[in-house]
């Protein structure tokens, strides 16, 4: 009857997972979108107005961010935001921020942490596009920077951003999972400071990272209870990865109709990864 089992309080774990899915997935989509948006805004001046030499130096400096582990920093910064505190006189439990503030702060922190790296990555993609021959041609024909940006850069950039977005979603899911293991749940952790028999920290909204934190220690009782939410995370990650890969595949083969003869051609293209020499991106049907 209960494929994922029931938890200590008798709730059906499968139903809880279903209920929590919307919070986790929506927040992941939104945060990944915000990350891309802000990095993109940051990357535009970086690619258009900053000379190559300075950008390369900036790039190398930013690569120092590779050595700051994201999970540790996220756990460290979010603990005061999400963990319920105890005010000593009167044993009053309280959060420093209200529910909405907590959510916005978490979104903000998770966004801002990757913007330096992501911004420079997108900036480099942009700069590579700007070096293509057709941009030089458009420039010589008298196109303004704005027109080059809208007509020539955006159509090439957007598909790449979709792929980056998928990667960011995967990364965010992993971070949520880690945060869940450290019992920092999206929207706040309800901690019971009862000195006698404290209830375990409870997630306020049943979202998945909360379920991981609640259930991981039950792995000794019945593995399926603990593994349920984790497997859900796995499925979500796999889905995002397939979206990214399928999209990439589509980009490489989109201007060939699927007939038997072309399928052979398609394989050759995928095998050799050579681009066709020239075509208008924004006039393609797909």
């Amino acid at each position: 009857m209960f494929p994922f089992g029931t938890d200590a309080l008798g709730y059906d774990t499968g139903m809880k997972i279903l209920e929590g899915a919307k919070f986790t997935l929506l927040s992941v989509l939104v945060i990944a979108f915000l990350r891309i948006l802000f990095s993109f805004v940051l990357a535009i001046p970086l690619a258009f107005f900053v000379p190559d030499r300075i950008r390369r130096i900036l790039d190398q400096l930013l690569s120092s961010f590779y050595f700051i582990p994201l999970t540790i920093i996220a756990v460290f910064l979010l603990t005061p935001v999400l963990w319920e505190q105890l005010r000593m006189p009167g044993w009053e439990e309280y959060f420093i921020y209200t529910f909405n503030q907590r959510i916005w702060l978490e979104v903000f922190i998770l966004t801002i942490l990757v913007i330096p790296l992501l911004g420079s990555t997108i900036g480099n993609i942009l700069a590579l596009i700007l070096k293509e021959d057709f941009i030089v041609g458009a420039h010589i024909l008298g196109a303004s920077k704005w027109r080059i940006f809208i007509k020539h850069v955006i159509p090439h950039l957007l598909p790449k951003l979709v792929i980056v977005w998928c990667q960011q979603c995967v990364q965010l899911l992993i971070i949520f999972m880690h945060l869940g293991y450290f019992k920092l749940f999206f929207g706040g952790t309800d901690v019971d400071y009862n000195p006698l028999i404290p209830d375990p920290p409870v997630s306020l909204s049943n979202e998945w990272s909360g379920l991981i934190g609640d259930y991981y220690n039950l792995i000794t009782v019945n593995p399926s209870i603990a593994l349920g939410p984790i497997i859900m995370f796995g499925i979500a990650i796999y889905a995002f990865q397939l979206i990214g890969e399928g999209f990439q595949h589509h980009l490489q083969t989109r201007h060939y109709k699927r007939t038997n003869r072309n399928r052979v051609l398609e394989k050759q293209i995928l095998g050799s990864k050579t681009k066709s020499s020239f075509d208008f991106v924004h006039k393609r049907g797909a």
Partner: protein
Amino acid sequence: MKIIKKLLMQLILTIVSIILISGLPELIMNKNVSMYFNKIKDVCRDIFQMNQMTYFNQGKPRLFLDDIWSPYIYSLSILFGALLIAFCMAQLLTWVTLMLPMFIRGAIKNLLTFLESLPDLLVFALVQMGIVLIYKKTGVLVSNVASMGAEERIYIVPIVCLMILPFVYFYKMMILLAEEELSKQYVEMSLAKGMRRIYVLVVHVTRNTSEGIFHFSKSVLWFMISNLLLVEIIFNIHGITHYMYSDFRPEMLAACLILLVIPFFLLYALFEWVIVHFTKRGEWV
């Protein structure tokens, strides 16, 4: 000379950003900017006088540097071991894979996409359960699933846990890069000259992809340091991040992260120097 200056800049920037980040909880908790700067001053003082820094162990203050060296070395050996094993295995298997026919390669790539999306917690849980299962069925304890205290050291389980996902990442990346490289003309040329495929693969293609792999390995390392924290807590290993998590103050975080970052930074500086020096392609590195 120029490269040394650049690396020094990077190192200083890393340390500064770690210190700046470590003060942030003060800002979040008190919503007061001046307290944030005070905290940063405190952290800086502690970092510069690390030999006098104290931390709390079971409620008692103890000298930080007295206690940290042995868990530090332990954590580093786990990390380095995992990274090295993952890299070598991936490289060997890549060579084997690229000798196989196309359709098997396609299947392997699909499998790798699937493995890549395994969440790390699931991997840890499965390793734990697997060891228990083997013990139940055969009575052979492959390794302890958790260390009992600060004295006991387990190596196999944490290294296996840490290396599985990086191995998959490396493997996939190497196959993709090598396939791209194999479609270039010099490969065709050397094959036409009669060189063996394995020779071209091992000598030329590997050398040409090494730079891309080197840059990719940075992000793998980024991922591994985060995982180290999880592994040390799940398996109750008393390594450096365990100390850090048990006393989660800004000073402690800054000191531990800086200690953890420096060896990898030096290693990468060395590799980068080697690449610049021997390939003479400094601008593109």
